[in-house]
C-alpha cells in the first residue's frame, strides 16, 4: 500500500518535474522554476511560488478586513444623519404628490454616485437607471441632460453620453456632508441648467445588505400647474392659499427650489450610506474568498512539500538498495 501511495505521489509530481538534461542549465533568476538544486545534485520541488502566493493572499485578506471595519464605522456615523433627514422630503411629496411619468420637454437626470470604488454594484445600477430614464424620456422635441455627482458615474457616462452631460461635480465627501454644501450645489444646478423636470437617481439605504435604486422627481412650477389643471394625479394647487410675496408664482418658484435642495440632501446622504454598506459587504465577501483561497493554497503547499520529501526518500532508499545489490 505504501508503494501504491508513493506511485500516486510520483504521478502527481509528473507535471511538476521538468525533464533534466545532463548539461544542467542554470535557470535564470527572472523565471523561477519549480525545481532547484540542493547539494550533490539532489532535486527538490520548490515551494517558493506557492509560498509567495500565500503571503500575498494573506495580505489581501488583512487589507480587505481592515477596509470592512473602516466602512462599518463610517456607516454608523452617517446612518444617524440619514435617518434624521428622512422627514425632510415627505412634506413635499405629501403636498405636491409624485409624478415620475410626467411628460416634459426638458428633462434633467441628476445621477448621484460615489467617488471611490470597491463598493459593489451600486454605481453601475445608478448609471443603468439613468440611461434607462434617458431612453424613457426620449422622443421628438424632448431632450434629457445629465448632471453627474461623483467620479464613478462620470467615468461610465462620459464614454457614450458625453454631449448630454451638463455638469459634473466630484469630491463631494471631502468634508462631512451638510445641508449648506448641498444647497449651494442645488443652487448651482438650478442656475446653470434649464429644466422642466429634475429626476434624482440614487440608491436608497434600506439596510446594510439592501440598497434600492430610487428616482425622485422634482417638477418645475409651470409643469406642476399644467398637471394640476389637466386633472392629473397631482394635487390642485389652487385649493391652497399662498401667503405673502407679490405673486403666487414667486412663492411657488421658491418652493420648487427648496424642494430640490431638500430632496438632494436626503438623496446624497442615502447614497453615501448605501456606498458604505455596499463596500462593507464587498470587502466581507472578498475577505471570505481570500480565506478560501488561502485554504486551498495551504493544501497545495503541503502536498508539494510532502511530495518533495517523498522524492528525496525514494532517491535515498533506491540509491541504498542499489548499493546493496
Amino acid at each position, binding site marked *: 500500500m505504501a508503494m501504491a501511495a508513493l506511485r500516486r505521489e510520483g504521478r502527481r509530481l509528473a507535471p511538476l518535474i521538468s525533464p533534466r538534461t545532463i548539461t544542467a542549465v542554470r535557470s535564470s533568476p527572472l523565471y523561477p522554476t519549480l525545481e532547484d538544486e540542493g547539494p550533490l545534485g539532489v532535486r527538490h520541488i520548490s515551494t517558493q511560488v506557492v509560498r509567495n502566493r500565500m503571503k500575498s493572499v494573506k495580505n489581501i485578506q488583512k487589507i480587505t478586513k481592515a477596509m470592512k471595519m473602516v466602512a462599518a464605522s463610517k456607516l454608523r456615523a452617517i446612518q444617524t*444623519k440619514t*435617518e*434624521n*433627514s*428622512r*422627514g*425632510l*422630503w*415627505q*412634506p*413635499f*411629496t*405629501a*403636498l405636491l*404628490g*409624485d*409624478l*415620475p*411619468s410626467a411628460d416634459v420637454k426638458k428633462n434633467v437626470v441628476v445621477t448621484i454616485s460615489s467617488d471611490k470604488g470597491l463598493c459593489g454594484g451600486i454605481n453601475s445600477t445608478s448609471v*443603468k*437607471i439613468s440611461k*434607462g430614464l434617458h*431612453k*424613457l424620456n426620449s422622443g421628438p422635441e424632448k431632450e434629457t441632460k445629465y448632471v453627474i455627482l461623483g467620479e464613478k458615474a462620470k467615468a461610465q457616462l462620459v464614454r457614450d453620453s458625453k454631449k448630454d452631460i451638463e455638469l459634473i461635480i466630484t469630491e463631494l465627501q471631502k468634508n462631512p456632508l*451638510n*445641508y449648506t454644501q448641498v*444647497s449651494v450645489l442645488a443652487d448651482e444646478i438650478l442656475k446653470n441648467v434649464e429644466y422642466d423636470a429634475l429626476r434624482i*437617481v440614487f440608491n*436608497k439605504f*434600506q*439596510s*446594510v*445588505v*439592501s440598497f*434600492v*435604486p*430610487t*428616482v*425622485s*422627481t422634482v417638477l418645475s412650477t409651470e409643469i406642476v400647474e399644467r398637471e394640476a389643471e389637466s386633472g392629473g*394625479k397631482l394635487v390642485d*394647487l389652487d*385649493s*391652497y*392659499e*399662498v*401667503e*405673502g*410675496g407679490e405673486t403666487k408664482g414667486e*412663492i*411657488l418658484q*421658491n*418652493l420648487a427650489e*427648496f424642494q430640490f435642495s*431638500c430632496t438632494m*440632501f436626503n438623496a446624497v446622504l442615502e447614497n453615501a450610506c448605501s456606498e458604505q454598506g455596499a463596500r462593507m459587504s464587498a470587502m466581507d465577501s472578498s475577505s471570505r474568498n481570500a480565506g478560501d483561497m488561502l485554504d486551498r493554497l495551504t493544501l497545495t503547499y503541503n502536498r508539494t512539500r510532502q511530495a518533495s520529501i517523498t522524492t528525496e526518500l525514494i532517491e535515498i532508499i533506491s540509491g541504498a538498495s542499489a548499493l546493496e545489490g
Partner: protein
Amino acid sequence: MLRRASMLLACRPILAARARPFSTDLPAAPSADATFTEAWTKVIPNMDPPKTPLSFMQPRPPTPSSIPSKLTVNFVLPYASELATKEVDMVIVPATTGQMGVLPGHVATIAELKPGVLSVHEGSEMTKYFVSSGFVFIHANSFADIIAVEAVPLDRLDVNLVQKGLAEFTSKLSSATTDLEKAEAQIGIDVHSALNSALTG
C-alpha cells in the same frame, strides 16, 4: 467543509433579520406609480423599475368632514425631525406676512417663513423655537408641515453675540458696493434683528 456549512446556516438568519427595513420607512401602497412602471417595462424590459418616494411614505388621511380637535404637526429640519405627527392645539408661525396662528380646521395654505419665533402650544405648555426660514404647508385635513432650514430653542441664543452680529452687518451694509454684498448684508440684518426681538420680546 462542515465549517463553511455551519457558517452559511449562521449567516442566513442574520441576513434575513438585517433585510428588514428601518421603522422610519413604512411602505405605503404605491398608487401613482403604475403609469411609470408600465412605461418603464415597455422601454427597458430587462431591469426592474426604480422605486419612487411614494412607495416609502405613509399616505396622509383624507379630509375629515368635521373639524378635528387637534392639529397634527410635522416640524422637520435637515438634521432632525423635531416634531413628528405630534398632536397640538395651535402653532404660531412667522410667515413673511407676519405671525400666523394655525388652528385645527385652518384653510389649506402654503406660506414662506421669514426669520422669527415659532411657538407650539400644547395644552398649557408652550415651546418656542427661533427658525431661520423655510416653508409651512397647512393641509385641509388639519396636518401642518413646517420645514425649516435651522431652528433652535430660544434659550440657546446668546444676547451679546446677537448684538455684535447686528452691529457687524449694519456696518457691512453701509460699506457694501455690489448688489450681492448689499443683499447679503440685508439678510444678516434681518436675521439678527429678528433674533433681537425674539430675545427681548
